[in-house]
């Protein structure tokens, strides 16, 4: 799941300061689950911004709409009618959603309402942690299903570094040592011998560092 966090009301207010009628577009998928950009969060932001602008004697009309997914044109088209009646759109989707909406409405300013953070999982109620950085060359099979590329601060493929304390990372004690987790996991599944393997250097050409990537599945193309 893509995890995002909310921008402050002050920042949002600044972003739309030049507009009098704005569409706040929520997304019903990842950012709804991570309580950042779903219908409820959009509603709260709408109230807060509307009150703030009234207090400044510069009222703004805000139209709200939450669609199933902002990253697919099939769903974005539902925004066409409300979008035609506003000066600008604030997307409460992830960065992909913001850009998909901007592409769909080329003549309309589209602003990001959230800060997109990472690919992660829900650890407990309202707590998400990063698990995957989408490097394009998954090596999880080497490490018992725990990714040191994402979860080790030093991205060691042949760890551990020796700096962990009480199973916590020396870079950030709030974070568990990924290599301790890998050891525990390999021990649990009876594959400790994997620690003897030398993992070759990673192929980073598949990662974001070479620019925006593209996936094409020819067998499914029309």
């Amino acid at each position, binding site marked *: 799941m893509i995890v995002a966090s909310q921008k402050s009301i002050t920042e949002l207010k600044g972003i739309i300061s030049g507009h009098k009628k704005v569409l706040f577009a929520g997304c019903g998928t990842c950012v709804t689950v991570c309580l950042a950009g779903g219908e*409820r969060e959009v509603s709260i932001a709408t*109230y807060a911004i*509307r*009150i*703030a602008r009234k*207090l400044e*004697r510069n009222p703004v009309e805000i139209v709200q709409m939450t669609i199933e997914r902002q990253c697919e044109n099939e769903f974005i088209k539902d925004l066409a009618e409300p979008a035609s009646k506003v000066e600008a759109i604030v997307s409460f989707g992830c960065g992909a959603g913001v850009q998909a909406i901007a592409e769909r409405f080329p003549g309309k300013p589209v602003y990001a309402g959230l800060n997109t953070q990472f690919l992660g999982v829900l650890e407990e109620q309202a707590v998400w942690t990063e698990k995957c950085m989408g490097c394009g060359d998954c090596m999880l099979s080497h490490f018992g299903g725990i990714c040191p590329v994402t979860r080790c601060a030093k991205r060691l493929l042949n760890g551990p570094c020796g700096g962990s304390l009480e199973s916590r990372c020396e870079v950030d004690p709030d974070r568990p040592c990924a290599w301790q987790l890998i050891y525990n996991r390999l021990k649990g599944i009876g594959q400790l011998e994997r620690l003897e393997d030398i993992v070759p250097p990673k192929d980073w050409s598949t990662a974001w560092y070479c620019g925006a990537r593209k996936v094409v599945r020819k067998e499914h193309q029309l």
Partner: protein
Amino acid sequence: MKQLNHRRNMEGPDAPEFSADSRWEPEIIAFCCDYCAYSAAALAGSNRMQYPAGVRIIHTPCTGKIETEHILGAFEKGADGILVVGCLEGGCHFVEGNLRARRRADRVCAILDEIGLGGGRLKMVNLSDSMASEFVQEILEIVEKAKALGPNPLKLSKQSESAGSL
């Protein structure tokens, strides 16, 4: 004309000159849980305890049912102060509705501070159904707090708009 004078008063840095107006009584919304505060309010009424007439009680099944939007919406419509009254901690009929309400109230206070309306206009307290005198005391305190802060400026701008002065 009088309304315009009112409006000017609110534009200065020392805005709440309204509070000096003895005729103004704050409009207070009290969100009351069915299992405690609503009974406490009823008991206060049975005992003929007095509190200001500007208090409007909203009967809720549990304070956990009160959403952030309900509170912000009430302020947007002009409430001068809001009191959320839930069960004593550990005594929620739905186990932790009052604890969730507390966290939501804290967040709304932060939003109100951020947007300039003032988090002091919102207060959450925990009472039991027998605490009628404490209920009245809390009402009196939020009324006094609202008087100190002055009228909700949103209500004022609404009045100005209807008077055609904006």
